[in-house]
């Protein structure tokens, strides 16, 4: 047993220990945290507990939910420690697998019929490492985050299931792990369903979408496995060559639909901006930074590794869906006023960019240009890693804001810089990273992606010649809108004056939450200044996908592209930028030193004091952009004028409402939902409750079947 396998086993054991520690029922009645949700969870809650919870007052419940008792706090610390150890072990296991320490495990007795097969290769190792790193930050953060006991117990289970998905090496194992992951995350999404009806709705959307996705993957993989001697991935890989093109295409499209819905790709994204905001914030971080990545993993594993690259239209489809999601996601994010919904749409955008890279890599690989394919794939994988780092940071700091103020509405936040200094700093770092500007880490991956797309033009083919410039434009537009989005989120949410009492009363989060954010922040800084540290591992992971990819990027400080001319030095860029800012500030200070200064009142148009109502809100900041993209977003305006009773010329009150609905949801989902509902209502007419009628149905069905058999045989 080598290091990677040992570390992986340690990660699973530590996750189990964390779940058991957090899930143990309490002895003392006051500290039995959150038995309300417990009835729904896997963690068993005794009948005694339930009776006690019914008798307990609401104040007690709130106190115990916040972990106010000392024993509850200690358990949270121990569970968080186990969770962090599990994440660290997973990082070690993933990095070892990426470094070439592959292992495999065959446990035929664990699952009936299929058995369990686990194989760790560099591609799976990358996703194990990313999930583990997110889990470390989340576990540390979770110690102080107010959550119920079932949530604390289910988080390690969710992490463990996400660690198992990338190492699953047979269709049966993969589907079981995938479903385990979906169920664990569903449990976490609906944690708050009693308190807010929106949570229950989000949970329903998520449950339906994720299971439809599972069905699509199931159909694809089972169809694939039917043409192979066994259901192990090795057997599928060798059988892929003999499949007919139609079957290969069908397998790819079915699995793509399932994996894209998990990755939140348009038009299968509808669950994501609902479920991610409604889950507890550290769970949102896990879902948005780790779980959606597994959709990308699935596409890479099935499309590249198992099916062998396939044909051009597959990857054109992937690239098109990615480009659409990138633009649509960021457009919805820029007009969103809910902080966590904004981050959820930003996930759709970033995963869209990743799929642009994956699609471009596939197209290059089909055209036979493996160096460029490697470059595009490495750019996509680096963006996965970067996105995981900054989205963890952003969701964790949004959770800190939510804990302190109780609201996610940007129009009611503001003025948090003085009240939550650490959270503000962390969110600023995350926003900088997410807006793809030079000192941030997303810049490096988007630069690599753009290099791949721009240099892809000489690759022959009409599709490439048309797609690549469009993709470049999409990436550029997305980067610009992302800057506007995060300027809005940071400027309106954290700066200026508080817009509501909740924001005014906000208090900084406990140190464990800040430490969790700091872990993610360090990862962001590290990836921004030294992306070269992870690039060889990414190149090896891309090598699993496209076996003749080679190493597309070389160099330690300066990244040099081997396939095409181009180099970038993130560290020197950061240093130069910092030096330039310092020089400008020093220059201004020097230039202003000799001039006379006068203290003057802040200019408020000569009138009374400025009030928070005069500030820019998230809605007003995004208004020009909403106006520009009016045709795409189609906002709904609603003006209600109430006239005075005496005369229609006198106005008593005016009510103005504006919302930007998800247009794809309106056009695509609502008709389907309405049709299903109509079908159900029509079906109700068949079942009247009359036994005679049911016997009649049975008789006529049997007769019809017999007639059909008699005619066809």
């Amino acid at each position, binding site marked *: 047993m080598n290091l990677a396998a040992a570390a992986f086993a340690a990660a699973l054991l530590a996750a189990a220990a964390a779940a058991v520690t957090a899930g143990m029922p309490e002895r003392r009645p006051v500290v039995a945290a959150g038995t309300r949700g417990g009835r729904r969870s896997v963690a068993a809650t005794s009948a005694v507990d339930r009776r006690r919870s019914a008798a307990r007052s609401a104040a007690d419940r709130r106190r115990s939910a916040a972990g106010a008792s000392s024993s509850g706090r200690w358990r949270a610390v121990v569970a968080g420690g186990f969770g962090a150890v599990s994440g660290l072990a997973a990082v070690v296991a993933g990095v070892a697998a990426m470094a070439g320490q592959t292992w495999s495990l065959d446990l035929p007795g664990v699952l009936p019929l299929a058995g369990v097969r686990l194989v760790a290769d560099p591609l799976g190792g990358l996703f194990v490492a990313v999930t583990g790193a997110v889990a470390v930050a989340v576990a540390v953060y979770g110690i102080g985050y107010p959550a119920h006991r079932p949530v604390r117990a289910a988080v390690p289970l969710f992490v463990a299931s996400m660690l198992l998905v990338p190492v699953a090496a047979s269709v049966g194992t993969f589907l079981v792990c995938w479903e385990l992951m979906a169920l664990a995350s569903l449990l976490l999404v609906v944690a708050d369903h009693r308190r807010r009806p929106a949570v229950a709705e989000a949970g329903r959307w998520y449950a339906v979408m994720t299971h439809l996705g599972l069905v699509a993957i199931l159909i694809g993989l089972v169809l694939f496995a039917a043409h192979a001697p066994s259901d192990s991935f090795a057997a599928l890989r060798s059988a892929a060559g003999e499949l007919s093109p139609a079957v290969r295409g069908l397998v790819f499209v079915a699995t793509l639909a399932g994996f894209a819905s998990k990755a939140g790709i348009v038009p299968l994204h509808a669950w994501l901006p609902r479920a991610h905001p409604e889950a507890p914030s550290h769970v949102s971080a896990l879902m948005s930074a780790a779980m959606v990545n597994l959709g990308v993993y699935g596409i890479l594993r099935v499309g590249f590794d198992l099916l062998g690259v396939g044909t051009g239209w597959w990857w054109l489809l992937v690239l098109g869906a990615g480009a659409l999601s990138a633009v649509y996601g960021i457009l919805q994010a820029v007009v969103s006023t809910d902080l966590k919904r904004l981050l959820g749409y930003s996930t759709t955008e970033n995963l869209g960019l990743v799929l642009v890279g994956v699609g471009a890599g596939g197209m290059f690989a089909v055209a036979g240009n493996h160096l460029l394919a490697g470059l595009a794939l490495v750019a996509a994988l680096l963006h996965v890693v970067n996105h995981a780092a900054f989205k963890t940071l952003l969701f964790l700091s949004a959770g800190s804001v939510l804990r302190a103020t109780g609201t996610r509405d940007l129009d009611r936040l503001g003025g948090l810089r003085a009240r939550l200094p650490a959270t503000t700093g962390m969110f600023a770092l995350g926003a900088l990273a997410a807006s793809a500007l030079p000192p941030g880490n997303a810049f490096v991956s988007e630069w690599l992606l753009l290099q791949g797309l721009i240099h892809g033009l000489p690759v022959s083919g009409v599709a490439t010649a048309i797609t690549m410039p469009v993709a470049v434009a999409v990436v550029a537009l997305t980067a610009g809108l992302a800057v506007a989005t995060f300027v809005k989120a940071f400027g309106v949410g954290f700066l200026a004056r508080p817009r509501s009492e909740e924001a005014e009363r906000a208090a900084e989060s406990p140190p464990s939450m800040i430490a969790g954010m700091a872990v993610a922040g360090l990862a962001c800084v590290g990836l921004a200044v030294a992306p070269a540290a992870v690039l060889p591992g990414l190149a090896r992971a891309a090598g699993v996908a496209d076996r003749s990819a080679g190493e597309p990027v070389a160099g330690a400080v300066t990244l040099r592209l081997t396939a095409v001319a181009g180099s970038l030095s993130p560290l020197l860029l950061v240093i130069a930028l910092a030096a330039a800012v310092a020089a400008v500030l020093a220059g201004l200070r020097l230039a202003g030193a000799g001039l006379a200064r006068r203290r*003057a*009142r802040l200019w408020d148009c*000569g009138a009374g004091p400025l009030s928070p109502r005069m500030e820019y809100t998230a809605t007003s900041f995004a208004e020009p952009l909403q106006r520009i993209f009016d045709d795409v977003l189609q906002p709904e305006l609603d003006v209600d004028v109430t006239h005075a009773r005496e005369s229609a010329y006198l106005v008593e009150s005016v009510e103005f409402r504006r919302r930007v609905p998800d247009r794809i949801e309106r056009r695509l989902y609502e008709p389907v939902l309405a049709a299903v509902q109509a079908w159900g209502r029509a079906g109700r007419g068949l079942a009247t409750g009359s036994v005679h009628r049911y016997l009649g149905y049975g008789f006529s069905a049997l007769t019809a079947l017999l007639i059909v058999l008699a005619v066809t045989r």
Partner: protein
Amino acid sequence: MRLWRKIRRTGRVAEPAPPRAAHDRPLAPELRGSVQLRHVDAGSCNGCEIEISSAFGPVYDAERYGARLTASPRHADALLVTGPVTRNMAVPLRRTYDAVPEPKLVVAVGDCARNCGVFAGAYGVVGAVADVLPVSLEVPGCPPHPEAIVAALRELTDR
């Protein structure tokens, strides 16, 4: 394109510049050549505003002498105050004056701004502009002719 044709057909409507008035010394040598103005209505009947806007219109074109209206006192060199100073506007007027960076001037435009005009002694009037701020230049008239306003502005810009 229609705008372009209109511009070509109309041609130049600005009246020829009258000769420069002779001064012994400019009011503010630092502001010579270019003066940014912030207009404050301290309680005017809007007669003076109409004349000011026509002084900055195409016919009198005060901008060719280097005077320009700005939107904020922070960008201004001088205030253009019209009307008698009413009680409600006394504090905002003083604050506006405080917001203008040094060196700064105040121009009182119209009879009301100079000596309260017909509103002298009214219950809502604090006094003339000179009672609230140090005035450096006055433009008489009720309302003053655009030519008079332009002449006063030329005195500021010294052009």
